[in-house]
């Protein structure tokens, strides 16, 4: 849990969890102590020995928010990887302490919307038994380190980023210098040139690739973010060697910690500091700090990386056989399966394997909602077909990383029976939506109902296929938890004298071509917004040229035509 873990010379657990780091006794003891500490704090709060003002920061340090209708518990999934046992623990929390649901977010967390303060300690105990916790899911500290949902599996990946994500996790968890930063701090890390982690919209985004002597190097993006002031991160350097990863991160955080605007919450993120200083000056200060540091203390030797890697279980891929031929035959025989394979799978680096995306976006459904039963089923499928490992995506879906191609048809049938077989990944109905005013105390408007209406309106699969890749993201306020700025078509809830209204943005992207969506015009009522989106889609279908995605057409045609169909319908 701390830097000392990395120097601990302890035998790895007998059975290693595939795809993530195996906790040892030190980690487990720490979690137990932390839970006892929180139990005491809760008891003192209930007894009246702590006021709400005193207690609030303490509960937030354990991921417990007070929302509109109840307390909400936010649980981190480090680099998005979960073991089946962990998923069953989440199902248990949903069943015993919530109203039967868990809700996946855009930062590889899961949230429970109905946790009682009285039950929180018991819920944290269930988490701890599965080597999980809710620490640093709130507050001005380094938050969950997110990563690529296809890490360690994707064919286009250059290296598995999860070992370095784990190094960053150990370094950042309870780091004494960075527990009270000017504002929260978000990292994302990828090992693929295709940005599936929204690296350019994070406080620090890292893109790893193999460098000299077979050791990784990192491109470092700094100062990206959404929220009130959306900004694309700047590339600070392209060639950070592995051995200096922690020293350089520490140098960046020190510059931020020293200069970040603690006097003004709206200016406190590192993105504002980078803008205020300018990239060159910010880089100069980081380099200066970096040069002055005792770099040897932070150096990550290859032996250390290998020791961390050795604490990760690796899948034992069976020889290919005729798996690919079986899959091809299954696709020929079943058109619905074929449609799903086309949208919901991703190429795997191991021959005969494939990664699949479980869409948590059924027609008319709530994006990211999973029932306890669905979570248990996902755990079962992971055990039977994917080495006991699952991943959660920043687009509120779930991934089974390593499925043998000849077993894919069976997995799809099992998913479909549970309402999890929707074939819409990256289509118009694969909508991201924050909880919005249905739950969130900060919201101005509901996000989920508009997602449901759009999802029902465009449910026809033929139509979705015709429209092609189109990312719709919805946020209930300017905090942008639903990443609306990074959407091809974003929707933002605003408050119009106490009533809900919505603004449309166009042209955002969270990938390598990162861009911030432009506001189209004044906000409108929910139904008008749904109709306006339909007209935008119609215009795109008329104006698009060979093979263009919605985003391409928008970028080529420009805003004016789209604005006309929204505000002056024919």
């Amino acid at each position, binding site marked *: 849990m701390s830097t000392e873990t990395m120097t601990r010379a302890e035998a790895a657990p007998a059975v290693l969890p595939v795809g993530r780091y195996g906790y040892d006794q030190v980690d487990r003891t720490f979690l137990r102590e932390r839970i006892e500490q929180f139990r005491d704090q809760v008891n003192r709060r209930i007894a009246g020995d702590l006021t709400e003002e005193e207690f609030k920061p303490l509960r937030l340090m354990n991921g417990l928010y007070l929302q*509109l209708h109840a307390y909400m518990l936010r649980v981190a999934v480090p680099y998005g990887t979960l073991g089946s046992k962990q998923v069953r623990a989440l199902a248990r929390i949903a069943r015993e302490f919530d*109203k039967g649901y868990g809700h996946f977010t855009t930062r590889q967390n899961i949230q429970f919307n109905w946790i009682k303060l009285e039950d929180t300690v018991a819920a944290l105990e269930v988490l701890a038994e599965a080597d999980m916790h809710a620490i640093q899911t709130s507050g001005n500290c380094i938050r969950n380190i997110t990563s690529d949902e296809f890490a360690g599996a994707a064919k286009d990946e250059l290296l598995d980023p999860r070992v370095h994500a784990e190094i960053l996790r150990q370094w950042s968890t309870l780091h004494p210098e960075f527990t009270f930063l000017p504002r929260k701090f978000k990292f994302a890390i990828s090992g693929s040139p295709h940005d599936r982690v929204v690296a350019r919209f994070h406080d620090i985004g890292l893109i790893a690739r193999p460098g000299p002597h077979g050791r990784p190097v990192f491109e470092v993006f700094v100062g990206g973010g959404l929220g009130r002031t959306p900004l694309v991160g700047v590339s600070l350097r392209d060639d950070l060697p592995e051995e200096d990863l922690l020293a350089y991160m520490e140098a960046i955080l020190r510059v931020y910690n020293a200069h970040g605007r603690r006097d003004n919450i709206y200016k406190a993120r590192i993105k504002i500091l980078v803008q205020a200083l300018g990239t060159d000056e910010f880089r100069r200060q980081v380099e200066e700090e970096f040069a002055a540091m005792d770099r040897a203390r932070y150096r990550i030797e290859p032996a250390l990386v290998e020791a961390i890697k050795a604490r990760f279980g690796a899948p034992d891929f069976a020889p290919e056989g005729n798996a690919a031929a079986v899959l091809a035959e299954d696709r020929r025989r079943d058109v619905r399966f074929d449609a799903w394979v086309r949208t919901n799978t991703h190429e795997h680096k191991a021959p005969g394997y494939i990664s699949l995306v479980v869409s948590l976006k059924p027609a008319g459904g709530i994006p990211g909602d999973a029932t306890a039963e669905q979570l248990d089923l996902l755990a079962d499928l992971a055990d039977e077909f994917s080495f006991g490992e699952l991943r959660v995506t920043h687009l509120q879906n779930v991934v089974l990383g390593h499925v043998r191609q000849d077993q894919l048809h069976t997995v799809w049938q099992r998913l479909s029976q549970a309402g999890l077989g929707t074939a819409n990944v990256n289509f118009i109905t694969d909508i991201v939506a924050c909880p919005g005013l249905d739950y969130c105390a900060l919201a101005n408007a509901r996000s989920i109902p508009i997602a449901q209406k759009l999802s029902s309106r465009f449910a026809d699969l033929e139509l979705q296929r015709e429209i092609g890749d189109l990312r719709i993201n919805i946020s209930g306020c300017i905090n942008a938890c639903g990443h609306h700025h990074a959407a091809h078509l974003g929707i933002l809830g605003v408050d119009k004298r*106490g009533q809900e209204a919505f603004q449309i943005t166009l042209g955002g992207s969270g990938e390598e071509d990162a861009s911030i969506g432009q506001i189209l015009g004044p906000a409108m009522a929910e139904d008008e917004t749904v109709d306006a989106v339909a007209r935008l889609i119609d215009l795109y279908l008329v104006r698009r040229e060979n093979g263009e995605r919605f985003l391409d057409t928008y970028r080529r045609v420009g805003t004016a035509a789209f604005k006309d169909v929204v505000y002056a319908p024919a």
Partner: protein
Amino acid sequence: MDIRSNRRDADGQSVITANRLLDGITVWRAADGSWKERITESTPVSNTEVEGLLSSLQGKAQELGLVGIYGVQVQDSPDGRIVPVTSRERIRAFGPSVHPEFSPL
């Protein structure tokens, strides 16, 4: 306090609301001083009185087992029930619209 929760006209009427400390559930104050999960059981007071009532209640939040006591302006709906004037407070009163089975009503 969030300005959206305090949107009150001089001559309107308001109900008093809070969240329960132990489970976080939204509650509304009735005429007898008890706190109900249903806004329909709460009793409005005129906006001229609400601030005074609030300040006396806010001092007692701990003994009442409540967090975040504040006033919410309401109006009569066509069916005769009281309804908060803002979307936010309507959702707090009637539950998340996306899971109607979780509504307190």
